């Protein structure tokens, strides 16, 4: 157990107000958007950092009443026995909508209201951020348009339907491969034309400043609660905090209040996909491990670590979990990795599926495939674990049942149940 040296938990997440994390971050956006992100920076400082007009109080109250916070910190008895350490689960899967995503979506939609905006736009890949934004927009009575790649729409129809049920307009993006990257670009285009009335609710700790710090601050409630809960339950701080990392919002949410506690290991688990090697022929990275394998570059408004080819073209990434399937990563996380404060670990598709089945059948919690990577890490690195290990259960797996069937069938996963009746899908 780490000793607990005092940190000002309230201040810790609001660092990098200048938008830079070492060399990372910044505001690499078309000039047309600069005034909007300056206005947003101003609003962020007033409402989020300084709680003007009681913004943060209202945010926290709504997160409690509408979102279901605090989420529990649960000791996982059977996993603890298996790995011979104390495994605790931070249950973001119990948040309204089924993932941590609502923390951010609700914060931003509320902020848009405080800013006097009258319309919300957002991008979505798998549909998790889109559904969270649609829920928050319905709750706060804000018209909302969600951009989603056409291919993703076809892969994630239940989430599309959920967004529509919540009254959002879902706009298909046909450009390129029709996935998340294109949807982000398209949302930026809409924003460039509508900045005066519209707020862009970005879905992770990516994009130009102030998005990375703002999204982190909205998610920092995760580690704020974790810190209190783990102290109550164990009397000290954890030895490790483990979270999956796509853009890295659940990750920084889980790490934020521990960054200053040097004794707490922070482990960011990336999608190792099918291989860490680049497929040069196709120009494809069969993984989404930008922290472990990416190079510095500029994407979607920020300097960060990226999967790119030698020319600087962004590569197609890959993961069985669409929520991790992104070529970039939040600049703050990239910086903390360079500083050796955060340890990046890549977990491949097979190990993630093992983690998926492990948590499902030993703890009765079916995780999102994104989250499953964190459990794949426990499974693969069991010998490195000791003391108190807190895993952020970033989301539930209901959205992933079809994918879990297909991916499990395609492999030989030792701890999967008999899948024979599902070979045709569900």
């Amino acid at each position, binding site marked *: 157990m780490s000793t607990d040296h005092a940190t000002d938990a309230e201040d810790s997440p609001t660092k990098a107000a200048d938008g830079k994390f070492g060399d990372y971050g910044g505001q690499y956006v078309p000039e047309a958007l600069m005034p909007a992100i300056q206005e947003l920076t101003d609003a962020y400082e007033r409402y989020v950092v300084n709680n003007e007009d009681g913004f943060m109080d209202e945010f926290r109250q709504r997160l409690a009443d509408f979102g279901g916070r605090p989420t529990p910190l649960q000791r996982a008895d059977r996993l603890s026995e298996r790995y011979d350490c104390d495994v605790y689960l931070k249950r973001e899967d119990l948040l309204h909508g089924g993932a941590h995503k609502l923390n951010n979506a609700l914060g931003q939609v509320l902020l848009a209201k405080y800013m006097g905006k009258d319309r919300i736009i957002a991008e979505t890949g798998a549909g998790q951020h889109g559904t969270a934004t649609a829920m928050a927009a319905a709750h706060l009575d804000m018209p909302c348009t969600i951009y989603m790649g056409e291919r993703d729409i076809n892969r994630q129809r239940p989430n599309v339907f959920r967004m529509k049920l919540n009254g959002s307009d879902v706009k298909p993006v046909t450009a390129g491969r029709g996935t998340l990257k294109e949807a982000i670009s398209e949302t930026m285009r809409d924003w460039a034309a509508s900045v005066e009335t519209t707020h862009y609710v970005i879905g992770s700790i990516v994009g130009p400043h102030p998005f990375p710090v703002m999204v982190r601050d909205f998610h920092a409630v995760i580690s704020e609660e974790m810190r209190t809960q783990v102290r109550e339950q164990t009397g000290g701080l954890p030895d490790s905090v483990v979270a999956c990392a796509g853009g890295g919002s659940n990750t920084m949410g889980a790490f934020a209040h521990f960054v200053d506690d040097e004794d707490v290991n922070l482990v960011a688990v990336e999608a190792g996909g099918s291989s860490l090697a680049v497929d040069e022929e196709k120009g494809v990275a069969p993984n989404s491990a930008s922290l472990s394998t990416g190079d510095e570059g500029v994407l979607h408004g920020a300097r960060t670590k990226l999967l*790119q080819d030698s020319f600087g073209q962004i590569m197609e990434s890959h993961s069985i979990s669409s929520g991790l399937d992104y070529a970039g990563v939040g600049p703050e996380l990239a910086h903390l990795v360079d500083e050796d404060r955060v340890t990046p670990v890549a977990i491949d598709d097979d190990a993630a599926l093992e983690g998926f089945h492990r948590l499902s059948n030993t703890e009765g919690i079916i995780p999102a495939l994104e989250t499953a990577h964190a459990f794949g890490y426990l499974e693969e690195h069991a010998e490195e674990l000791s003391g108190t290990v807190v895993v952020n259960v970033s989301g539930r797996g209901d959205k992933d049942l079809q994918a879990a069937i297909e991916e499990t069938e395609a492999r030989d996963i030792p701890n999967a149940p008999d899948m024979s009746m599902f070979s045709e899908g569900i």
Partner: protein
Amino acid sequence: MADSGQAAETRRSDGAAANSEIAAAFDDGPAFIPYLAVGDPSYEASKAYVEALARGGADVIELGLPFSEPIAEGPTIQGAIVRALEGGMTPELFFEFVEDVDVDVPLVCMTYYNLIYQYSPPGSDERGPEQFVARAAEAGISGLVVPDLPAEEADPLRAACDEHGLDLVFIVAPTTEGERLQSMMERVSGYVYVQARLGTTGAKSDVSDQTDRSLQRLSEWNVPKAVGFGISSGEQAERIVASGADGIIVGSALVDIVADGVDSEWSTAETADKLEAKARELAEGATRGQTEPAPSDE
């Protein structure tokens, strides 16, 4: 190609062109500045198209070096970029193209910052703006436009441009105001790219009256003002020049012709002819605008 020897001669001071050719392009009446993505739909075809634009009266040509995430472009130019990338365009091929293309107007490279940031010349391990600009200058590029590089992040690129005698063109948006406008005025060189309306690139049939307001805001700037975003006809060109613009920038309306050519399987020559004709219409419109009085509602 344009002779790059002259370009190296540095004479930049705030607002003035660092590059003599770009400066010269505005000396002689309003400048018509067309844009095409290099490699759309192939190296050879786009060479023919760029040459057609020159014949049609271009004073400066913006050459797009395609990047996979063109967040400032509308669907039209995005389509061009996709075609060019699918056709195998790379930064190195782009520079070869610049060396190869047979035009005698200044060429401005329009691209996104990551390609500059990552650039390393063949055989070298070094990467970054300095390498990129050195190679661009060598190839004969006179200036750069980097839509996702705000003035605040531009210092390394500015330094390299200064060193190699290239202009670094900034875009002023309708929303750019106050202090921000001031700081851009201090940094711009060559010409200022006046964004005619909010949104991304794309041909529009109306011309926003935000243009008039923008030009007015910039009236004291000591730099040519080239207006772009949405210009698609000779009449629009005329009206904008009449409003006080020193030049017009036209992209999507030209890319639309390239796209039509691809869809309709026109021959390269046929597409080139249509581009040349469109260029002429726009260049002539701009020229007419200079001789007409400014609209009375100003």
